[in-house]
């Protein structure tokens, strides 16, 4: 866990498999993206993102991540922003547009109320993709073109690349 707890009204919890081998979705995306990037794409890992808006203490934030969002047997959680990209790695984040129903986000908000946490205004969910390339990362234009066609539907989602 990083010590990057934001004191503002909004924070992001990232949840992912403890081991890359357990990330079935990542493996599926690796197969799908191999057609575009070839064998230089070594691995894709996926992480659930939860952006929680509301006034919450640090203890409450920890409780939400530990007790609600993360399965401690198979998953890790962390707080904060997109990590600084390492060599050969690219991070893409996909979120729903503001007006689009986010069923999982709404369910998380209801679950928070069940936990006795009522000071949450809104929860939005997204997904982070970590693409690991064997050597150099493909040109940004190609990355943007391929990922915007495959990882999201621009009618309901937007994405950012780092």
């Amino acid at each position: 866990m990083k010590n990057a707890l934001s004191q503002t009204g909004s924070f992001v919890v990232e949840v992912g498999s403890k081991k890359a081998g357990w990330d079935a979705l990542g493996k599926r995306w690796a197969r799908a993206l191999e057609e575009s990037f070839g064998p230089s794409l070594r691995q894709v890992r996926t992480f659930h993102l939860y952006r929680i808006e509301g006034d919450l203490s640090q203890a409450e934030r920890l409780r939400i991540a530990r007790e609600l969002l993360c399965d401690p047997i198979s998953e890790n959680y962390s707080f904060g922003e997109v990590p600084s990209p390492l060599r050969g790695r690219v991070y893409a984040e996909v979120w729903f547009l503001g007006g689009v129903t986010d069923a999982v986000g709404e369910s998380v908000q209801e679950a928070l109320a069940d936990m006795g946490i009522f000071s949450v205004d809104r929860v939005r969910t997204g997904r982070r993709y970590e693409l690991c390339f064997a050597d150099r990362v493909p040109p940004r234009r190609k990355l943007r073109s391929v990922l915007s066609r495959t990882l999201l539907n621009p009618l309901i989602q937007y994405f950012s690349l780092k």
Partner: protein
Amino acid sequence: MTLTSHGRRHGWALNVAELRRIDAYFASQGREPTRAEMETLAQTWSEHCGHKTMRGEVRLENVSKDGARTGRVRVYRDLLKETVFRATRELNLPWCWSVFKDNAGVVALDDRWGIAVKVETHNHPSALEPYGGASTGLGGVIRDILGCGLGAEPIAGTDVFCVGPPEDFRSRRILTGVVEGVRDYGNRMGIPTISGAVCFHPRFRRIPLVFCGCLGLLPRWAVEKKVRPGDILMVAGGRTGLDGLGGATFSSASLTEGVSQGTLNGVRSSGVVQIGHPVVEKKLADVMVVARDRRLYRCVTDCGAGGLSSAIGEMAASLGARVRLDAVKLKYSPMEGWQIWLSESQERMVFGVPPACAGAWEDLFRAYGVEAARVGEVLDSGRLQVFYQQEKIVDLALSFLHAGCPKRRLRARATAEKEPSLELLSVPLPKKSRRIRRTLLEVLSSPDVSSKEWILRQYDHEVQGRTVLKPFSGPTGGAPQDASVLRPLPEKFFGVAVAQGIRPRCAVKDAYAMAAGALEEAVRNLHCVGGRLRRVALLDNFCAGDPEVPEILGELTRASQACYDGARGLGYPFISGKDSLHNTARVKGKDLSIPTVLLVTAVGILSDIRKLVSMEFKRAGNWLYLLGMTLQELGSSQGEGVLGKDCGRVPAVRWKDSRRILQALREAQNHDLLRACHDLSDGGLGVAIAEMVLGSGKGAHLDLGKVPRMGIYREYEDFVILFSESHSRFLVEVSPRDAAGLEDLWRGVPFRRVGRVQEEPVLEVKGTTGIPLVRVGLPELGRAWRRSEGANK
């Protein structure tokens, strides 16, 4: 600005005559229409809600291939009424409790309980956003069941997809998206998805077809519903937002490039795309059954296409209503009045609640955590009046809203099919044993035929504990059953079987044969499972391109006629249906259209599920019989697809023969003479016997020389017998001690003993000349059958 340019600008799928009628109405009222009124009319009169083409007057000309008129012109005053509805009306069966008038059709299970069934299409939304489109397609049809009568309890779901070839990345993405959409919605609602199909064709690449169905259980007293003046209108379930705005008009027009999200009131929205929330709908479904049994409301309907405008407009159609939109619970604000009125946000139902029950109704919904709001009341005014922020935004006569749309008069043209010449019948086909063996394996691994287990295993088809014959069963767990069977009432042995028929490949050659084949295939599948089949009801789902094109309307008309002929010929009524037209797209200046397709869903009521018969072989040493006649009908077959050349005539259904053969099969089932039964459809006899081998782990020996056949070009008999897709045929396993009884029972219908089940897991086929033709082991068959799974995943 002219009315038509207004219409284009706002996306109203109204033609000039309809816009003129609206203009004249408001001229008679002495005022201009409001935006909300125009949107209400556009939604109610849309093809999606009003079925203007299928309810229109159609003038059908038969022409030859060179365009000359060949026969008399036939005029249908109302295409649906004179074909599909007519068959049901003429059959007039007392166990059809509700047909073509409610959100779903209802048939009697016994004296006290009925089964509600509905199948919907969700093609346009799924083309734009496969996951959201398919999940809300299933969510919508579940609400149709909840809104049928006073509410049926959903007990099963079905899905059928038509997509582009799996080697195409876009089509693969659409398929995985729609499968995940159905999986997540059905599984999260705790409704088993028990039956379905997937078809592949290049013309579905841009416009996939997504059919979602649902079955529900309701008591007989809850079949009828009616609001009364003074009843309070309540909206319950999900909140209202901008999602799905204009869905009905959108799905009544062609898809164009550049459909995109917009920013409405500062909120970036998906526009016409809806996203579902199954947990909200699950709570709604749970509370509804309790409220129904406590008789806390008099009427209910779902908010589907057109949102509140359509739901309240329909509920109060014969009376009147006053609505205050300020009370509607919103996802975010501000929203304009017309947006709240027209929004197609999911998981919402409208109730007509007697004033005396309103308090108890609200308490109950609160206790279940379902949000609800009083939004108006039913009046005896004959008008629909809607208010928002103290302003009247809609004031329409309901008679104009529901009966004011001018009837469409359309021209249809059908090309008469000629009997194929002898030359076409003798098109060179494989003769050598090695080539036929290879063709069998290629057909087995073709996308349409190959295993769909990777899809079905994602669905929970056992939740609720009612599924007694599952989509895949048998000792290997991989026997694809012809129909799935539910046991709706745990204390009784009644069953409900569900099966589908769809033949899009055939549509390109002959729309009548396509529809007839789909209908018979669905019915055949039901007959395979035995269980003392007592009643059969059918549902139709037409999908086509632009019906303004006479040839496309000609195909629709011929397909509708096939429905009438089939329903009358077999004696099985249609009870519900839905059409989806304008399945066209304009891409890079080219107009693309789907082939005309009919999905027929057949629902059978079984008297005794203890007498079910599955399709996999049961015991080595048992005999195999083929019931039905094989003809040279390879046109549009899977064999034709593998060969890549025109193989001539498409399979035709001969309704009298079909009825006799179905009757013969039913009698054999009723006498418990069959150990296994499988119908012959995609891939013909070769695929049917291979699937029975795959499902059982046992082998089989088949002698093609004994197969009942006629009109087959002798030189290519082996290939034709193995791959012809002639209808009305079944391959059955019979114990030798029952053979005499069966042969006695089937006197008068075409059948022969054609082989036997063997312990060695090998499929052996002997040719018509007596020489061994094919010998394939179970592992090789399995590899071929599952080959395309990896590509589709």
